[in-house]
């Protein structure tokens, strides 16, 4: 892996235990600072690809290197530690925890992982991110009291609070209207650019593709046998 490459995968093979399908990723590469879109229809396996590349799902065979570490050689705990330090995730519908306030939602990776230490610097970073995304006044509120746009900003702050070199977004605008989609993507690009994070977005919204450095077809990245 060259210094430019943040994530590379080769000859990945994964079969769901339930036998739903077998996925095969011949080759995949993300360079540092890139903004890449991966397009595929609903149910084509976009989430499976993201989970394979980040070690949430363990490939049956093949090799993945993430930020200089051989992910496929690591045990479950080490994969989790690498993932939480290296990858920020933005989920479809944002997946905020309705019982935590906005600040705790942003700090969630620190609350659930022993691999990260929650200190004053991290709290300050969370507040700075909230300020940068315009939600600094909402830190004590619960997600149920927020608008869709505000929730999306919280999700973004949570993905970036660990200062990850890679941000993965799984259909981040899937349930937003056109105006809000544009605003959300503006924010995503801006914040990732500010932090120098690589951005991989999986989406089925072709309207957004012009804005990315590279656009991949899911079928090209991952072959699925059902």
């Amino acid at each position: 892996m060259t210094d430019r490459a943040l994530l590379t995968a080769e000859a990945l093979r994964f079969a769901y235990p339930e036998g739903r399908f077998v996925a095969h990723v011949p080759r995949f590469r993300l360079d540092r600072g890139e903004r890449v879109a991966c397009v595929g229809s609903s149910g084509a396996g976009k989430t499976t690809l993201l989970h394979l590349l980040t070690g949430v799902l363990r490939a049956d065979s093949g090799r993945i290197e993430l930020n200089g570490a051989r992910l496929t050689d690591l045990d479950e705990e080490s994969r989790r530690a690498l993932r939480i330090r290296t990858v920020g995730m933005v989920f479809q519908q944002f997946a905020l925890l309705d019982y935590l306030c906005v600040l705790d939602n942003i700090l969630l990776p620190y609350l659930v992982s022993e691999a990260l230490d929650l200190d004053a610097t991290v709290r300050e970073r969370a507040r700075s991110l909230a300020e940068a995304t315009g939600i600094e006044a909402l830190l004590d509120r619960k997600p149920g009291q927020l608008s869709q746009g505000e929730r999306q900003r919280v999700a973004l702050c949570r993905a970036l609070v660990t200062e990850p070199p890679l941000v993965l977004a799984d259909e981040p605008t899937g349930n937003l209207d056109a105006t809000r989609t544009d605003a959300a993507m503006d924010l995503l690009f801006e914040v990732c650019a500010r932090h120098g994070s690589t951005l991989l977005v999986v989406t089925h919204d072709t309207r957004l593709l012009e804005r990315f450095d590279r656009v991949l077809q899911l079928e090209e990245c991952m072959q699925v046998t059902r």
Partner: protein
Amino acid sequence: MAGAHARHHRWRSLLLTFCLTVAFLLPATTRQLMSRYERDLSARADTTPLVAGTRGNRFDLTLGALYFRQSALEPVHMGLLEQIQDRGRGVAVPLHTGHLAREATLVGTSLEYYEQRGLRTVTGSLPMMIGDALLGSAVAARLGLGPGDGLNSDPTNLYDINQPGATRLSVCGVLAPTATPDDDAVFVDIKTAWMVSGLVHGHGDVTSPGALEEDMILSRGEDSLSVSPALIEHDQVSEENLWDFHLHASPEELPLTAILYFPADDKDATILKAEFNRSAVHQMVGPRKVVDELLNYAFKIKRLLDGVALVLIISTLIFGGLVLSLTARLRKEEFDMLHAIGCSRSATWKLVALELAGIVTLAAAGAAVGLILLITLAPDLIRVF
């Protein structure tokens, strides 16, 4: 996070806590009740070696003699007490119950009762004279009475002038608390008990010529006089009328509810019991044995209650398990998300377990507080006597 989740879903958490509190509290209360019951019953029985009475239900005799419960047994007579006393070995104590004074059991006995039970007065003295009443601590507290005050016995029948009316008793002292049935009783001399029953009575002179109007005299014999029930009897003993009190029967025939016997030694106890058990009319029982039988019945009920409590706990655990499984299903997306960002599966289960542990701890604390409140605010539920 576990606390935040529990607080966010406060009604669900409260419901679960309440169910668990009830599931903990019921068996704890039963256990407390039964152990108190056993302790108090056994302690009272242990300090009363033998009880004599009319042959019949031994539970009635024991409960009547030890706890002053109303007994359906026929009374024994004073002559029996004298027979036992004539043996000159242990101490025989007469007991007469069946009347009330301001709803407290009126217990007629002798001075030996206080000595054998180790009772002492906190104020005043023991009942030395006919008409004196010694109050148990709870009765004194309830009625607010002390030495020098008066206390009326409850009349047996308000509508029958042939029945004895209320007798005015004079409070001579108050006993120290003992946490036994003695606290809830009013003690009088055995003669006073007979006076309340109407067996001993006092009235003015009826034999002197002209002492009574002729229409009050029903019949005249050689050495007897029958007067109308309309003759007013003394309802209170005083220094002036003390010598007016008398009885119209042989003292040996006066009734006793039971006789407590404190034997000189085991041999004395065995001989006396053997003599009584040969009798077709009387019986003598060892209260400890009778109480043990009672406790066996109580423990059967306890086992039943324990079974019910176990079912309650199991059903609550199943209910809790169901809530957990539904929670896990409802929170699947949340747990998947947490796993995706780097949280271990075990950590997510730790969150659930911590929340549940918090609820169980709260429920256990609630049950402990509930039990303490129950003992403090509703002592009659826990108290045997």
